[in-house]
């Protein structure tokens, strides 16, 4: 299991235990993390599971693929650290990952 920490815009923190192989979005939905909507269910088709990856983790998490980069056009307040959580696969390496939830997903 890998531990993933979600930080809300108001600073509230939630820790989720995620099984390697899941997507971060699935782990977030299972624990009903506020602000992760995932309207399309993980098809990389809606940009409502947008998160900011903590700077310390950006290299390990990696950059978005082309399709995800295109879909990020539909997100609001996109930053260099932006990812769609349905496109991040949980691995043992990501144990302790810190993600910030944006103010709004639209």
């Amino acid at each position: 299991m890998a531990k993933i920490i979600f930080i809300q815009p108001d600073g509230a923190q939630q820790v989720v235990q995620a099984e390697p192989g899941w997507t971060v979005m699935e782990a977030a939905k299972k624990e009903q993390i506020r602000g992760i909507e995932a309207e399309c269910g993980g098809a990389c088709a809606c940009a409502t599971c947008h998160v900011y990856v903590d700077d310390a983790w950006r290299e390990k998490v990696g950059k978005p693929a082309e399709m995800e980069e295109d879909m990020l056009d539909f997100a609001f307040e996109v930053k260099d650290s932006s990812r769609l959580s349905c496109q991040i696969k949980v691995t043992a390496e990501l144990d302790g990952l810190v993600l910030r939830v944006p103010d709004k997903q639209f």
Partner: protein
Amino acid sequence: MAHAHAADVSVAGVPIETDCVIIGAGPVGLFAVFQLGLLDIKAHLIDILDKPGGQCAELYPEKPIYDIPALPIVTGQGLTEALMAQIKPFAPTFHLGERIDELARQPDGRFRLATDDGKVFLTKVVVIAAGGGSFTPKRPPMEGIEAYEGKSVYYAVRRMEDFRGRDVLIVGGGDSALDWTLNLAPIAKSLALMHRRDEFRGAPHSVEQMRGLVRDGKVQLLIGQLGKVHGSNGQLEGVTVKLKDGEKQLPVNRLLPFFGLTMKLGPVANWGLNLHENLITVDTEKFETSEKRIFAVGDINTYPGKLKLILSGFHEVALMAQAAHRIVHPDKKLTFQYTTSSSSLQKKLGVK
């Protein structure tokens, strides 16, 4: 949004009379045509999207689905195409790019439905198969933007005249943003296109044309994101944008944001149906709502044990059709038959 073809517009004041109107042309709405068709019930389908298939077509046309009975793997597009082929014998009428805005019961028990395009239906039965709701343009979460919508902020261009002689800001990187940049540049007083990165998803030749206009000084290209809207009484006077080198206020009076679509329950919420957490409550015998003759099937309904699966929707429409038959053909006796062996059903399906 696509506009209706002249041929299927109800002539002013003359409604389209039919047995059944199905709201939503996703997989469940499409299969409803089949089940109703077997029972001699003619249907019209209305969908806000410009194509049938609903979420399957809009959100995941290329993505595989693994839980459709007897199809180990099928894409959203593949499923839509197969359903379209399956319902072809029943020749349903599609009204695409339209949304049912009004529903009112008539003294004779039928319903009068009106679309946002002014088309009117008179129908004996209504089937709501609207899935996650109506696909609606995403509203950028900018404070107070609602006050400007339809007056100086638009999510689609319905009348180009609204932009003539205006200072226009278009935001987005897909075909809508590019197409309207190309089309409005000649009539706008000034036009700026803003996108969060200097790469565009739209058709390559549109990107090329846009870059040409930028070179000729006819379009200003900005790499950045939306900040705040300024103005009063719905009239936009400026937009603060966040560019790489800081914030800037653009003196624009028209804003066109293109951030894709999201699903909203929409007008269904105003029809007096019992709802539970934005879903329509139905019985599990007929899938009828709290209003007689109005049925709800697929992802938009809820009942004890409900699963939002396409296969559940398929089951629901089969039972709904039996109940609809009693309403549409009250004098006809309904005998249960199999398509495999019934000559009468095979005739309807065009089997030779």
